[in-house]
Every structure is written in structure tokens, then in C-alpha cells.
């Protein structure tokens, strides 16, 4: 499968009080048509920066110090502003964590969906098409919903409308940044179910950014585990969850309360803190917290491929 979107060796830094904060360091991953990729990691691992780079929406002050983001072979980080407008929304669409702030509170849903859909092609903004898309994302009374304001919808409904808004432009890549984090467990399950159903009829690629391992396991084909701005491990979802090679992946999976035996007196923790991204330790970034670190871990880490389609950034990873 040829990659639809591929991130090659991407490095991004932000200005900080002392020096520059290395938010991404040589991140490499790719996603193909019809594939769902999960990007998982804890706060400060760079997953949101990576998602923003995939749509060239990095905040002010961010500097790309190396690498590329290619959509169908075109480096989107080099595009002129006019070409970027066509890219965003049309080729790549994004669904944010809090759908309340994604919508304008004083315009009706119908008006806003028409704006999104019609930005590039007015014919796409026909009310019947908008209503059909709302039906597709599971809104029970679409005609009524089009006349409503964002505050009149529940969180789950707003997230469905946000997904509809993203799909209306028929993008090649749909990026969802923490799409279920603000929702109840029942609504989370329904949004996961919806995204899974949409995959069947959506020919593009889906990228889910989340800190929730359960969401990745339920939804994705492949997963990239991020730590301190690097892709620590990547591979098929089954391999990563059942045969994790990177000690960070192993630790992250082990401390999820959903997998720990409820009778255990204490939950496993990782211990220590993520490193200061303005002043990284030599060698492996996880080495100060790693339970199986060796002296060699202070040396630059090679990326290894323990199996086809897998990669791991660890001195011990080839075992």
C-alpha cells in the first residue's frame, strides 16, 4: 500500500524561556488509504504538534527544523497560503477535542455546515446534502438540527456534527484530535462505533490522536506510540498491544487501570517525569525512567525493525 500521508523525519521546536523546546524530533510515520492510524502518548509527547503539522496548522513561533509532511507526494509544509486553504478542509479535515469551541455560537448548525461544505464548491452546500450527512453520522432529526445553535446540542451530538462537517468536504485525510475525551463512556462508545462505520464508506485515511489506549485498540489498524517528541514504537495494533517491544510502550500498557487486576493493592506507575524538552538527556529520552536501561542507552538510539511494518526506537528493541 502506498502511503497517502507520510511524515518523514519531522522536527519542530517552540521558543522557550531557555533555548528552544524540541516538540518533535525526527518523527516518521505514514498512513495509507482506508487505514486508521492511532497516535498515542502522554501530555507533552508531541502528538498534538504532530497532528497540527499534518494539516500545516502549527501555532505561531513553531519552527520546522527538518523533515517533511507529504500528502500524495506534495510537501504540505512548503505550500503557498492559497494552496494551503485548498488543502485544509478540502484535502485534510480536522475534528477537535471540544466541538463547542469549533463552532461559532451565534450561527445555526445549518449555516455553518453550508459554509464548510460550500467554501470550495457551492453545489455541495445544498440543504439536502447537509441533512443526508447528518443522518449518516447518526443525528436523529437532521432537518431540525440544521436550524439549531451549537449550545442547543449535547456534547455527543456536537461531536457528531463536527465529524459531519469534516466529511462534507470529502477529505483525503480525517484527523481527529482526542475526539472522545470530553464525552461520557456511553457516548465515547457511540462515536467509536460511528467512526468505525464511516471507515467502510470512507476511502481516505483516518488519524486518531488520543491518550486513551482503549480508543486506539477499538478503532485503529496501526498505532504510533510517542514519547518526548519521538515515535518510540510503531506497528500493527495487535502487535503493539500484545507484543510491545519498547519499554515505554510496555509500561504505558501496564499502568492502564482497565488491564490491571482489580484486586491488586497498587497500580503500576512509570515513575519519574518526562524529560525537559529544552534539555534532553543523552541517548534514549526514556532511559532515565527505563527499568531495563543499559549503559549503551546513553548512546544515540538506532531505529530497528523487529518485524515487517514495525519499528522501535530502542537499543534493546531488536530482541
Amino acid at each position, binding site marked *: 500500500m502506498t502511503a497517502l500521508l507520510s511524515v518523514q523525519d519531522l522536527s519542530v521546536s517552540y521558543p522557550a524561556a531557555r533555548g528552544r523546546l524540541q516538540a518533535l524530533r525526527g518523527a516518521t510515520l505514514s498512513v495509507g488509504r482506508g487505514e486508521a492510524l492511532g497516535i498515542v502518548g502522554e501530555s507533552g509527547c508531541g502528538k498534538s504538534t504532530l497532528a497540527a503539522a499534518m494539516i500545516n496548522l502549527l501555532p505561531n513561533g513553531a519552527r520546522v527544523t527538518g523533515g517533511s509532511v507529504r500528502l500524495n507526494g506534495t510537501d504540505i509544509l512548503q505550500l503557498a497560503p492559497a494552496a494551503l486553504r485548498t488543502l485544509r478542509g478540502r484535502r485534510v479535515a480536522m475534528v477537535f477535542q471540544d466541538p463547542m469551541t469549533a463552532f461559532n455560537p451565534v450561527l445555526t448548525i445549518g449555516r455553518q455546515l453550508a459554509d464548510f461544505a460550500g467554501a470550495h464548491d457551492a453545489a455541495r452546500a445544498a440543504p439536502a446534502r447537509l441533512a443526508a450527512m447528518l443522518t449518516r453520522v447518526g443525528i436523529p432529526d437532521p432537518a431540525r438540527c440544521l436550524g439549531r445553535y451549537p449550545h442547543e446540542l449535547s*456534547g455527543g451530538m456536537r461531536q457528531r456534527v463536527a465529524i459531519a462537517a469534516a466529511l462534507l468536504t470529502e477529505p483525503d485525510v480525517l484527523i481527529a484530535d482526542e475526539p472522545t475525551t470530553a464525552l461520557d463512556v456511553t457516548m465515547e462508545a457511540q462515536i467509536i462505533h460511528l467512526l468505525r462505520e464511516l471507515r467502510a464508506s470512507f476511502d481516505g485515511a483516518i488519524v486518531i490522536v488520543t491518550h486513551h489506549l482503549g480508543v486506539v*485498540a477499538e478503532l485503529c489498524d496501526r498505532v504510533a506510540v510517542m514519547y518526548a517528541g519521538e515515535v518510540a514504537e510503531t506497528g500493527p495494533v*495487535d502487535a503493539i498491544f500484545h507484543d510491545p517491544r519498547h519499554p515505554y510502550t510496555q509500561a504505558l500498557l501496564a499502568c492502564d487501570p482497565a488491564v490491571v487486576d482489580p484486586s491488586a493493592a497498587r497500580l503500576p506507575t512509570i515513575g519519574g517525569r518526562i524529560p525537559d524538552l529544552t534539555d534532553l538527556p543523552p541517548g534514549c529520552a526514556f532511559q532515565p525512567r527505563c527499568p531495563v536501561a543499559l549503559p549503551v542507552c546513553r548512546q544515540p538510539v538506532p531505529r530497528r525493525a523487529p518485524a515487517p511494518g514495525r519499528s522501535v526506537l530502542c537499543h534493546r528493541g531488536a530482541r
Partner: protein
Amino acid sequence: MTPVLEVEDLSVDVPGAGFLSRTRLPVLCQVSLRVAPGESLALVGESGSGKSTLARAVMGLQPVRAGRLRFDGQPLRQPADYARLRRDAAMMFQDATASLSPRLTVGYLVTEPCRIHRRPLPDPDRTARELLAAVGLPPGIALRYPHELSGGQARRVGVARALALGPRLVIADEPTAGLDVSVQAEVLNLLADLRRDRGLGYLIISHNLALVRHVADRIAVLYLGRVVEEGPTARVFAAPAHPYTASLIAAEPKPDPRRRRADLAIRGEVPSILRRPNGCEFHTRCPKAQDICRRAAPPLVRVAPGRLARCHLLDQQQHHQQGEHHAVDH
């Protein structure tokens, strides 16, 4: 043993829509709960189930229509009773950073409860250091301001503040919301340690079932302001009596790609309190609903020792379980 907290037939309502409206909308209906000293009770349910309202009512922050509240066996009626309650029971708020005043240092914040309740504070710095040590924070953090803290540190400061007056009960509203899994595990271990060392009782409000399974002895499930199931956590998770509890457990995403759900455990969302369904209020989403569920509201009955559930279909589901069914309310 006298329960540290007793809630009996608590009902809370709010004014209906419209400025002059005389109608009242029930938010909590005859909720009864008890927390024994050193016990941890979790209140679970979706948004709109009334769990936060219950916590606010217990702390005296929400007017109640009917029902009795007792703290340490003493009834809570007058404002003075609530002043005592707020000294001996502490609240941990959902948004830890937002609950800390941005202009005060951590050292001042953790000793603030002592100042408010006019406790003698001969050496505030030392008290602050001790409280911070109890929650596993270094003493140097006392000089920092809330915006300089990470999410996990802010949560620990919230716990230190809750401990300042030596409470017997801690009410924790979503104690790990917004934390990373590894930090979440640290906070849960801290809560467990404090419970063991200080005999704290907890009332934990959460929609995170994975968390509840680890920290709660007992669990009460709320739906539209009513308790639909209550019982020991392990047994409720092993064999939920109410279809709603079963749906909640099934809806949880499993961190195992080999155990993906093909179907949906539950559809839709909690109905609005403006339009409470007739009969059993869960029948609109219940996979097992039958005619009787649409007509009559089921009572809360004892399905096993220490276990209650509110469902018409218990006889069919629980036929394998021993024990008589006793109606405990209507």
C-alpha cells in the same frame, strides 16, 4: 459502626423553564446512600444523572427539597451543621488547577483551610511542608504558583488542601479527570495510601469505570437522578443486575484489539429531565425493555445481600442467584 455519611431519601429539584414557572423539575429522587468510616463509595452515571448535584447537596451547596442527611450520626439541618461538615469533610474538585487561586502560592493554598476555619497555625511553613510531604510533593513546591504546576501536581495540591483539616470524609469529583494514565495511577495509589493510613472515607464521583473498579468498595449507579443499582464493586462488575450497569460496563473501550465490540452496547443519551420517560426511565435505551417497563416504574429491590437494583426483569436475569427479593422503597 455509625456511618460517616448517611443520605436518606434525598430529593433535589430545580425550577422549570420560564421566569414565573411554578413547576419544579426533579433532579434527584429519593436517593439513599451511606459511607462507613474508611469505606470508599463510588457514584457512577452519565452526564445528567445527578451525581455532581448529589455531592453539592451533601456539602450544603445545593438546596434540597426533601430527605435527611447525617454526618457522623448527627443530622445536618442548620447552617452551623454544615460549617461543621465542611471542617470534617473535604471536597476535591474536578478541575484541580481552576480550584486553586492563581495569586496565592502553593504553601499558602494548602494551609488556607486552617486559616478559614481559624485553626491555630503556629508554623505555617512547617504545616505546609508536612501536607505536601503527605501527598508526595517536594517542599520547594510551596513557593510556586498554580500556573507553574503540572496537572498531576495540581491534583496533589488539591488532595493536600483536602487533608489540611484532618477530614474523615473526602468527596472527590472526577479525581483523575484530564490526567495521563501513569499520573492517574499515581493519584489513585495516593488516595489508597491515605485511606489506609488515615482511615478516610471516600465518596468518589466518576464516569470512569476502570478507575472505580480500583478505588471503590461499593458502587452506586445513578440514572436520571435515581439509584438503579448498588452493591459491592467486585460483584457488580462480575454480574451487573441492572441492564444499564451492564451497558455501561460493556461500553468501556477495552485496551485489547482482540476484544473489539462489533455491536453497540448502548444507544442515545440520557433523556432530558424535562421529558422523563414513563414507567422505567431507562426503557427508552434498554436492550431488554418489555411492555411492563413502559407502563410501571420498578421499585428498588434487594437482589442479594448488600445488593440493590431497580428493574422489572430481575427475576428472569437473576434466577440463578439465591436470596429473596425485598422491596425497600417504591
